[in-house]
């Protein structure tokens, strides 16, 4: 595509010039050239869920699929609120607005048809999805990236109880609710955080939350304590840094207890019934165990992890349920050896997009895909650590395995890494949503 053709293409999309892109970075926003108008000659791919995985797979299907691949992205919310960095809302460093991303750039830059609706049903035989609006949308390939749904902790069955005892594990009103409860805590109060058994979304996330809440309380609510009741036998991710944080940086504030059991929670009186006895708290942040998004379980694709997540072929992310051909599941809903987290969901989206584009033109998927997981973790309100791993497809086990040694955590916790975290976030979100 030459410059004139490109201008014509952009004109056809109703795009006046590159200046319309929201410049979330100092450098000029980059717009990939050569994304032709979709004709759907090879196929129509429907993507359900506009989070980190869904947005990325939609973008790369168009970027790599050329004119032949038409993409419809169906998302129930008008915009995406990032879970990444949402802990920084709790200590007042970020607002939800700063973590909100719309689908306008995906529609504009890549010709993705964005539909705001909920998918209520999937018919894998006729290859159609039924929307909350009553519309039916046919697909050649379907990608499900709906994230997670939460199990109910005994005692927290009602909406009122879930407001009194928030999880704040899906950024939005739950996040600001928890922030407000922490703000209203008395000095010398008790904050209790409960962590579910793995696998759950964002492995280092709960420990990060314990750290930043402890740091906030030290400053604003002196003599307060953070009690961490972890269902796991030990810290599940970034063990060295969190051990250091719990035993030295936040010593005397964080009381970390592995192998904990929460039997029930009395939301009205904020009392937990646990293996340690009854515990009365000022604020309870209970993170429930999780399973694949509703549409995945409703369609019967949850055939792994004791029925909690969806088994997929690691070369294509296609469901391993027989009769579910053409349905792919990426991100937190899928059962893989990779962590359930936004940065790697973006890469899963690219592996899936590449496999779908190849299959639509009769090619086999890449036989050796690689992915990577990276995250920065605030340990205090101004310092951060990081954790990263590179994964490669291992043919004998048909799974993704960490390569280049084990997952690596930073050897230090410092302010420079907090700044790097901000840059990482800005780049990751730009790459995913524009």
């Amino acid at each position, binding site marked *: *595509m030459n410059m004139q053709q490109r201008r014509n293409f952009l004109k056809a999309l109703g795009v006046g010039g590159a200046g319309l892109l929201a410049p979330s970075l100092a450098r000029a926003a980059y717009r990939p050239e050569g994304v032709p108008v979709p004709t759907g000659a090879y196929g129509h791919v429907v993507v359900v869920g506009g989070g980190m995985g869904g947005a990325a797979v939609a973008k790369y299907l168009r970027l*790599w699929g050329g004119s*032949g691949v038409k993409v419809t992205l169906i998302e129930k919310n008008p915009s995406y609120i990032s879970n990444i960095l949402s802990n920084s809302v709790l200590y007042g460093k970020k607002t939800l607005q700063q973590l909100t991303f719309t689908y306008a750039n995906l529609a504009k830059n890549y010709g993705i048809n964005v539909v705001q609706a909920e998918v209520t049903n999937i018919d894998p035989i006729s290859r159609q999805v039924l929307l909350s609006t009553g519309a039916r949308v046919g697909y050649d390939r379907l990608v499900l990236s709906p994230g997670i749904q939460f199990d109910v902790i005994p005692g927290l069955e009602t909406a009122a109880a879930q407001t009194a005892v928030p999880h704040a594990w899906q950024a939005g009103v739950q996040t600001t609710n928890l922030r407000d409860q922490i703000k209203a805590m008395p000095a010398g109060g008790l904050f209790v955080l409960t962590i579910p058994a793995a696998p759950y979304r964002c492995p280092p996330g709960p420990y990060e939350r314990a750290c930043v809440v402890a740091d906030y309380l030290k400053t604003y609510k002196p003599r307060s304590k953070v009690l961490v009741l972890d269902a796991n036998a030990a810290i599940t991710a970034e063990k060295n840094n969190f051990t250091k944080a719990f035993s030295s940086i936040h010593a005397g504030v964080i009381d970390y207890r592995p192998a904990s059991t929460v039997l029930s929670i009395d939301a009205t009186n904020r009392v937990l019934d646990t293996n340690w006895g009854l515990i009365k708290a000022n604020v309870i942040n209970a993170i429930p165990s999780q399973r694949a998004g509703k549409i995945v379980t409703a369609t019967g694709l949850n055939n792994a992890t004791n029925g909690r997540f969806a088994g997929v072929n690691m070369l294509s992310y296609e469901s391993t349920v027989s009769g579910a051909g053409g349905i792919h599941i990426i991100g937190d809903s899928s059962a893989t050896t990779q962590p359930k987290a936004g940065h790697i969901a973006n890469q899963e989206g690219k592996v899936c997009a*590449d496999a779908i584009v190849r299959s639509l*033109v009769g090619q086999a998927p890449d036989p050796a895909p*690689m992915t990577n997981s990276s995250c920065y973790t605030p340990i205090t309100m101004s310092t951060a650590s990081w954790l*990263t791993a*590179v994964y490669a497809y291992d043919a004998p086990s048909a799974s993704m395995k960490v390569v280049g040694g084990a997952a*690596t955590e930073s050897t230090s916790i410092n302010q420079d890494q907090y700044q790097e975290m901000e840059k990482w976030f800005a780049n990751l979100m730009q790459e995913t949503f524009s």
Partner: protein
Amino acid sequence: MTQIYKMTALLVAAGLSLAPALRADDSTSTSTSTTPYTSGAMTLNHPGRLLASNCFQCHGTNGHGMESLAGKSVSDIAGELKEMAQKSPGAEMMNAHARGYSAAQVDLIADYFSKQQP
């Protein structure tokens, strides 16, 4: 190799299915061509594309982001990655990433970014 990518891109753009003979460009051999790829479609079947996309989360789509990689020379990118792989992995996140890729994969990634318009 370059010629094959171009032909493939043209065929795809024209809506034609790929002839089996052209699937050879799925091989993981390293292209040493220096011809710049001026559009996304031209990199359609670059064998390093999916591999290199692991860098996009931080370095931007096709290398246009933080510490931009687009259009940098193969020797610059590959040289730096190979150097990083020798350093302490916990000191810098990139040192840990660099250890995850073989020398051949590093060359392929570098070739991909060198062919992107800066």
